[in-house]
Structure formats: structure tokens, C-alpha cells
């Protein structure tokens, strides 16, 4: 309990930024960005997710171990995603010209 924790003000500010980002991403969504619409949406979502994790879940306020666990979970998901996609993205490459 002695450790540093966010104040009500910080929570309220986080809440405001999250709502603003939600509005922003909803409006950007209405614009046709072609292949980038998913990418922009996901980047904003990840910013929002990080804000929730840092300020609401105190991910950076707790011990180093907690940070390692949180980062580990995300890293392992990226292993699953990255290696699986590596197969799908290169499956149609052929080393020799197709006959």
C-alpha cells in the first residue's frame, strides 16, 4: 500500500483520453483508407489497451515481475501469430519458375 498509485485525477484523465480516442477511431473508420483502415484501427486500439493496462491495471506501478509477466503474455501471442503467419505469407512463393 505504500507504493505509488494513480490519483482520481489520473483515472479521470485516462478515462477522458480513452473516450476521445474511441470517438477519433470511430470517425476515422468512416473514411476509406483502403488497406490501412484495419492497421490504423488496430494501432489506436493498442494505444487504448496500453493506457488501460498502465493506468487502470497499474502495470507500470507494480513490481518488475508483473511487467515481465504482462510482456511475456503478449510476446508469446506474437510468437504464435508471427510464426503461423510466416507460413501463410510465404506459402505461395516458389523457388523455381512455375511450369
Amino acid at each position, binding site marked *: 500500500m505504500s507504493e505509488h498509485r494513480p490519483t*482520481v485525477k489520473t483515472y479521470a484523465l485516462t478515462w477522458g483520453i480513452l*473516450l476521445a480516442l474511441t470517438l477519433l477511431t470511430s470517425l476515422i*473508420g468512416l473514411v476509406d483508407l483502403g488497406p490501412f483502415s484495419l492497421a490504423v484501427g488496430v494501432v489506436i486500439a493498442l494505444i487504448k489497451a496500453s493506457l488501460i493496462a498502465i493506468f487502470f491495471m497499474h502495470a507500470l506501478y507494480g513490481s518488475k515481475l508483473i511487467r515481465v*509477466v504482462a510482456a511475456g503474455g*503478449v510476446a508469446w501471442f506474437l510468437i504464435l501469430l508471427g510464426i503461423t503467419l510466416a507460413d501463410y*505469407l510465404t506459402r505461395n512463393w516458389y523457388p523455381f519458375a512455375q511450369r
Partner: protein
Amino acid sequence: MVSASSLALRQQFNNPAQQRETVTLGMWIFLATEVMLFGALFTAYSVYRIYYTPAFTHASGEMEYWMGAVNTAVLICSSFTMALGVHSAEAGKKRLTVLFLLLTMLIGCIFLGIKFWEHYRHYLDHKVPGINFQEAGALGPREQMFFFLYFAMTGLHAFHMLVGLGVLSVMVLRVVFGSISREYHTPIEIAGLYWHFVDVIWVVLFAIFYIPGAHLR
């Protein structure tokens, strides 16, 4: 020395600080397993989105866009009240804690209501794979994949919301009947962690299911 915290100390621990750290660590490890649980479905989404980009964009245009956007805001509000609930518990303000927990649950119910309404609309539109999916247009068969992933992932998310509501109900009872106090409020904290995590998942779900085709509306 017989304070509320020593009464709540389980026999396997030596002191309250150790118990608090261990329980919090346990919750974070659990959240890491949740990342992998949803991660498998995110992977499936990525694979099929890469293979069937046009169909996924098109199907995404059939989402109830503003319902999804409003629901995102709703869930963020519930996260805010949850954070305030944890904050009140830390400060030992029991009434305020109960109030914020109940408020969080109420907003959570609103989210589930809107979500259920959306699912019901899709059902009426014959968009539920395996039950009544009707293909429309050349992209139809590939759109079914989108809708399956949509129902699987938002369904799994809604299940987590229901579990969260159950957990919060127990927390309200524990605060009211006194096993939670200023010295011992770890259960509220870890319930909060779970609630926020479920929020995080939704924020990403909104981005991958609603936004790619929103401009087609």
C-alpha cells in the same frame, strides 16, 4: 495484532505483503493465459483476413457500427468506475466501494444488452454461421468465415463479461459483509484487473471487426 489483515491471512503465507504480492502475481499469470486463449482466435482471424481481405472488409461493413462504437465507450466507462471502486477500497471507503462496484455491474449489463441486441439483429439477418447463415453475393462463402470469427470472439468475450459480473457480485457481498477492509482489499484489486483486461480485449475486437468496413456503410 489481531487486525482484519491478519484474520484474512491464509496459513500458507508468512505475512500479508507476501500474500498480496502472490495473489496479484497469480492474477497476472492468469491474464497471460487469457491472452493466449484469445490469441489463438486472433491468429485465426489474421490468417483468414490475409486470405480473404475483400470479403472481410465487405462483411465488416455489415456490422452495427454505431452500436459497436457506443458499446466501446460504455465499456470504457465501466473500466473507469471499476478503477474508482478499487481506489475507494484502497482508501477504506466501504460505501463508495459498493456504489462503484454496483455502477460497474450496471454499465456492464448495458454493454451486454447492446451486444445481445446486435447478435439478435444478425440472427434476423440470417448471418449466424452453422445456424442460419445465408450467402449473399460472390463474397458470401468467405464472409461466413468473418461472421464465425465474429460470433466466436464476441461470444467468448461476452462469456468473460458474465464471469466478471459474477465475480463483482461476490465482491459486493464481501465488502458488505466485512471480509474486505482498508488493510485487506486485494480481492477487489484482482477483480478489477480481470474487468479491465476484458475491456482491453473488447477494444481490440472493435478495431478488427467494426472498423475495416465502416466506410462501406
